[in-house]
Each structure stands twice: as structure tokens, then as C-alpha cells.
């Protein structure tokens, strides 16, 4: 499903790495073509290799893909960090995070045990990361993982966190847990239930904390777009906020003075170049 050229869509979380069905999902040209076909002009990608096996090589591969800017589809990277490999993580943070081609760091459950990211695990990560003033992505495939993410957000109130996966099939409980921390945002990936978004909009009091994220290629962005457009209670304005507006504010892709709402807790940091600049 393509939304044509009438909408701006920022996909805040895609994978980077081939799958059985998406063999070209590590070729920037092929990824851009696939995203263009789905009406997505900006996507933030995280290395599957880094996440599951080799963070150094995986992050380097993403860096090579995103460092070259492209007018058609703006690919930017998440730097995957493993708390158990802080030496490597510090080195890569210094190398990449001062560039606007990387939007922040991404943390995932343990690739073997699937144990979720916890506040205790990432204390050292946060100590090294604070200086970069960028958001942190945490994968939350379950309600338990979301509970941990909510705790993290409350423990580090000055930072911005994005929970990706929305609790998976446990989205009801996960959304309830995510409601309280003001600095915890959710992308809408995970379950494709339309009821999920209705529930989230009700519990969260509107779309302010919601971002468009697909988790591609494991989930086709077209499927997530379909789910979003299936929600009858969303006004076009609120849908646009989810599709791109909230991400533009959160990632400072627009100038701070363009913001209509009250500044975020971290407002006042350096603004990145506007999304649509040539």
C-alpha cells in the first residue's frame, strides 16, 4: 500500500539486514526503493548483525549505509549498544553520535536469553551517553519489557526514550505501563490489531507519545500503515502527528521555534537541519 506523495512518513525503527524474504535489506538502494514504494521518505535503521551477533561490524555497516545523504529517502542510523560491551560501545559512540546521521542508541533484549533491558543493566551506558542529548530506543516485545522501559524512563527523567514494539501481543498491559513517564514514547509496531491504537489513544490521552515505527523488514511498513489508517477515531491532524509530527519534534528535525507545543524536557539542545532541506 502506498500513500502516494501526499503524506510525510518517518519510520523511526527499521532493521538493517537481509531476511529470507527480503534479501536486499542491507542494500541501501533496495531498501530505499522498498520504502519509497510504501510512501516512506525517512527511516531510522538498526543493524540486525549488531543486535544479534557483532555490534562492531553491524554498526559499521549501518554507518556506511547512512553516512551518504540521499534526497529520495533519508536513512539515518540507530547505534546498537550492548551493555556488556561498553568499551566497544564507547568507541563507537564517540565515532558516530556527533553526526546527525545517527539519531541515538538502540538497546535490545539479550539475543540469547531474551531478557529485557533493565535500568540496572544500562546505568553505565547512560553515564557515557548523556552528553549526546539524543533519544534512546528500547525494544519492548512484551509487557514485562515495557515495565522495565517505563522504570528506566522514570529513573532517567532528563532523557527521551522510545519503546519499540508496544509490548507485542501484550499491548494492553504495556500501554498502561507506558502512560505515566512523560519522557517515554511508543512506536506503533508490534501487534497489527486496530484495537491497540484505539486503546493507546484512550489511555495516553491522544497521539502525543505515539510514533510511526514498523520494525521492517520483519513487519512490512505497509501493514503498520494499514493498521493506522484503519483507526476511525483518528483525525487527519492526529494521524499526521503519529506519521511524522511527533518524530520531527522528538528528533529535533524541525527548528525548536517551529514547535507549537510546550518544549520537551530536553528542549534547548542543538537543532538538526530541517527534514526537507535540500
Amino acid at each position, binding site marked *: *500500500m502506498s500513500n502516494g506523495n501526499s503524506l510525510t512518513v518517518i519510520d523511526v525503527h527499521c532493521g538493517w539486514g537481509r*531476511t*529470507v*524474504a*527480503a*534479501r536486499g*535489506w542491507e542494500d541501501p538502494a533496495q531498501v530505499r526503493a*522498498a520504502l519509497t*514504494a*510504501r510512501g516512506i521518505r525517512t527511516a531510522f535503521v538498526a543493524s540486525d548483525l549488531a543486535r544479534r551477533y557483532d555490534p562492531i561490524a553491524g554498526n559499521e555497516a549501518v554507518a556506511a549505509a547512512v553516512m551518504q545523504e540521499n534526497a529520495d529517502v533519508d536513512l539515518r542510523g540507530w547505534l546498537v549498544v550492548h551493555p556488556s560491551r561498553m568499551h566497544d560501545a564507547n568507541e563507537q559512540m564517540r565515532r558516530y553520535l556527533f553526526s546527525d546521521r545517527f539519531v541515538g542508541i538502540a538497546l535490545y533484549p539479550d539475543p540469547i536469553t531474551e531478557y529485557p533491558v533493565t535500568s540496572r543493566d544500562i546505568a553505565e551506558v547512560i553515564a557515557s551517553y548523556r552528553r549526546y542529548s539524543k533519544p534512546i530506543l528500547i525494544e519492548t516485545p512484551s509487557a514485562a519489557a515495557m515495565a522495565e522501559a517505563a522504570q528506566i524512563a522514570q529513573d532517567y527523567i532528563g532523557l527521551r526514550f522510545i519503546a519499540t514494539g508496544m509490548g507485542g501481543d501484550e499491548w494492553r498491559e504495556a500501554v498502561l505501563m507506558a502512560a505515566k513517564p512523560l519522557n517515554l514514547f511508543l512506536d506503533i509496531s508490534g501487534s*497489527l*490489531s*486496530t*484495537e491497540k491504537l484505539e486503546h493507546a489513544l484512550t489511555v495516553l490521552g491522544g497521539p502525543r507519545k505515539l510514533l510511526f515505527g514498523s520494525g*521492517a*523488514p*520483519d*513487519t*512490512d*511498513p*505497509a*501493514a*503498520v*500503515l*494499514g*493498521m493506522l*489508517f*484503519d483507526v476511525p477515531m483518528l483525525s487527519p491532524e492526529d494521524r499526521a502527528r503519529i506519521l511524522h509530527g511527533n518524530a520531527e519534534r522528538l528528533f529535533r528535525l524541525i527548528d525548536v521555534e517551529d514547535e507549537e507545543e510546550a518544549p520537551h524536557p530536553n528542549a534547548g539542545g542543538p537543532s538538526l537541519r530541517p527534514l526537507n532541506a535540500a
Partner: protein
Amino acid sequence: MPDILDLFTLIGPVPPHAPTGSGPQELRELLTRYGVSGAVTISTRSIYYDAATGNEEARTVCASDGGGALLPGAVLDPRQPRPETTITGSRLLYLMPTTQGWPTAFAPVDLLLRHLAAANVSIPLWWEVHGCGDATAAANLLRAANYTGAVILGGVTGSAGLVEAITVAGTSDRIFIATDSLRGVGQVELAARALGPQRVVFASGAPAVSLRSALALVRLANLGPENEEMVFSGNARRILGSGSPATATAAAAAGVA
């Protein structure tokens, strides 16, 4: 507008939540909104509570559907005695081990399949194959029981699940893959390319899962108009047409009258 037939839809609530927006009227409206001309539907009551009364509910709802868009499916619950007695009038039978929490390799399933085969029941069978190994186990059981009806592998999830489902479906032209859980980039296309578009059937899981999402995934699969129509309806109509609705006679012949 291509003809679209959805082989997996639901009526009724998913407990413990209230049944808002999940009745037959809402389902019909949803199908009409997206141009889906027909759907096989099962009652969530049959999945989560009692297959016999739930299957009866599905039959009643479909019988009262004046437009004929809804076709009754029946859930076979092998945890209950004589599940084959609950299928009268059904066009598609569903085995849902993951959702109901029983293992695919399950002696009552083996017995059930043998009963159905012995009674010459050849109604198409939907088998939920969510986890690795499920499709393989299902195929082994069907082969051992000599079940002659078409088999649809539903709930296929992830790369490993898809590879397994394609491998299993490759062993027999009576085995099909449903699109309901093929949500990854390129997965519908891969299934169609590996097996041929004639072996892939459209299903959504609506309204629990976004129907719009499910339709989008097939439309993005680079199938071409003819093959897309095959996936959307041609294959399903062929499958449903090949097995006549379950009859009371067949159930009696299975020794469970």
C-alpha cells in the same frame, strides 16, 4: 475491483474483553468497506470456550446472513470428546493448537484425523502452524491419517516458519499457505514465487487484526493482476468448492452420531 474471499475471520469477543465491534453486523460492514465479497468465519466462542456451541453459533449467524457473504467455519477442538460431531454444515475446519494451547503432536488429533478420513470427510482443513515444527508435525499427522482434503497452513510466522511452511507445502499440491500472518517484507511474494500463486490464499484474522493491513500485504507482493486475483479469491473458491459442506451423515459414519 478484484473478487476477494477471506478464509479467516472472527465473530465474537476475545475474552476477557467486552464484545464491542465484534459481531456479525460489524464484520459484514468491515468486509463491505474494503470490498471483500465473502469470508469464512468462526466464532471466538468455539476457540476460547466451547467448540460445539461456538460452531453452532457460527452456523446460525451465517445462515441468517441474507447476502450470503459469510460462510461457516468450524473449530475442531481435540481436547473435547468427538469434536467431529460439531462440524455439520461447515465449509472449512480449523485446528488451532497455538491459540488453544495444545501441542500439534497430540494423540487426539491423530485419532480425529483418522476418523475424518475413514468417514471420507474431505472438507478443507485450516491448521494453525505458529511455531517451528508445527507445520512438519501437522503434515506428518495428515499423511499418516491419509486425510484427502485440502490443507491450509495458517498463522505462519517469521522467516523460519515460512521456510518450513514452504517446504511442507512443497510436498503436496493439496497444501496451501494462508497470508494471515505473513507480515514481513516480501513474505507473500516469496510464498507465491516458491509454490506458485495458485498455492497461496488470502486470510486476515479480521477484525482482531487489521483487514486493511492484510489486504495491503497481498497488493504489495508484485503478483500481477491475474495472480493477485488467484490469491485473493480464485484459489479459495477452488478449495471451498472441492469439499462439500460437512453433513450429519459423515459425522454418523465416523461413528459419532
